[in-house]
């Protein structure tokens, strides 16, 4: 049993969609993120992103839109473990998979369909019915 609220990992595809208004998934990311922020404010969850994914985020956005997000620092031991991950784990997902395992993260906000193959809960990115034009994308999860 953890004393902390459950952590939601915001992966690079989600961050990219959230922070780029031109991204096709921006509207979905924004709506999902605002719901997560409400839950964060109510102390029902924590928001996290890896140091690798946050590395290129401008300071203004880090302190602004991503203010509630804490950094999961990727250490050398995580990278070494990622290099030894099971065959079939995509190279670019290996480090996040290691962190998800080590930090016992159960929920991920992502637009990467590969995460649906793992035993984790994906944050719904479905738009509310009264939101503007849909991008016509398949849903990753409900």
């Amino acid at each position, binding site marked *: 049993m953890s004393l902390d609220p459950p952590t939601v990992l915001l992966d690079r595809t989600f961050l990219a969609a959230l922070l780029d208004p031109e991204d096709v998934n921006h509207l979905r990311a*924004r709506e999902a993120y605002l719901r997560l922020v409400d839950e964060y*404010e109510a102390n029902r969850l924590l928001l996290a992103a890896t140091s690798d994914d946050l590395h290129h985020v401008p300071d203004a956005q880090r302190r*602004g839109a991503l203010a509630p997000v804490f950094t999961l620092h990727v250490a050398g031991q995580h990278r070494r473990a990622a290099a030894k991950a*099971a065959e079939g784990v995509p190279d670019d997902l290996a480090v996040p998979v290691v962190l*998800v395992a080590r930090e016992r993260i159960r929920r991920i906000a992502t637009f990467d369909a590969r995460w649906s193959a793992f*035993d984790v809960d994906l944050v719904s990115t479905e738009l509310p019915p009264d939101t503007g034009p849909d*991008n016509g994308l398949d849903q990753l999860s409900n």
Partner: protein
Amino acid sequence: MSSTAGVIPVDEGERAVAALRPAALVPVDTWRWVRITLMTTYLAVYLWWLRTKGLPIDRISVAIALGIFLVCAFVGKPGRQWAILVGDVVLYAVMWFSYEMTRGAADHLGMPLQVESVRNLDRWLFLGHDPTVALQDRYWTPKVQWYDQVASFTYYTHFVFPIIVMAVLWATSHRQWARFMKRFATLLGVACVMFVLLPTVPPWMASSRKFPYRIVPPLERQTYRGFYDLGFKGFVKSWQSALDWGNTVAAMPSLHASFALIVPAFFLPWIRPRWAKALVLCFPVVMLVSLVYLAEHWVVDGLVGWAIVGSSFWFWNRAEARQRTRRATRARDGVAMLA
């Protein structure tokens, strides 16, 4: 799966990992087992030391014991976590050193000594009776009774209970450790201010023929006897440093009563059944009754200590909620600016 704009497709070869737990796909964290083994060994050695040499009581011995535990708990963790730990330890040491320096100096700063005022408050609360006198008249016997063992043992948990909680939180959740330490440090800070402003004669001193006060009948002060009767003893080493300073008039507030409340109060939100909440809250009550029976504190000392704990929680709970709201507001504003 066909490629759809904005969705990264899943290759057929990657379907083999479907529905597997991430923990099953990455190497086992062997350092975790090393830490568990070291901490288990530490616990065994600590219990052996407790039985053979006594319970570490003086500040430096406790700090050394805690330091060894932290090394066991952090072996193999990333360097960044070690750097954070070092910073935390420095702050922790500064906190205790400041507390001991203030506590040690408080009774030399010339503030008027409270002799009868606190005792009178107790008598007002208890309809003209002195609770310590009443308890000892009724229950104290030359032969150690079971309640002497309970009272004495409870008294001595003060020297380990909060430290154990700090150590466990330090090892398991830095976030929760920081939350606990904010509340704990606030308690110590307010207590030090009160030690300076309201140096207070405790019941044993108020009754002792070695001092001129003698405002209550003679009381027994054998805090250790129940603990010793159970086969335990205290381990106190004089390090000839400021951390050895005592202050016999630092009765108000009672840190024994405060520490006994701050730990269950911190964990109360995670305890679900009401009966379990009530049970853990019995501990500070048992501590206060023990302190009064053992003539270590007036009842009011404990009540004020509890009030400080409550205030500390009220303050920090609000501060943390406000911090979450500030960050959430910045997030909403930041997202709005992206549109």
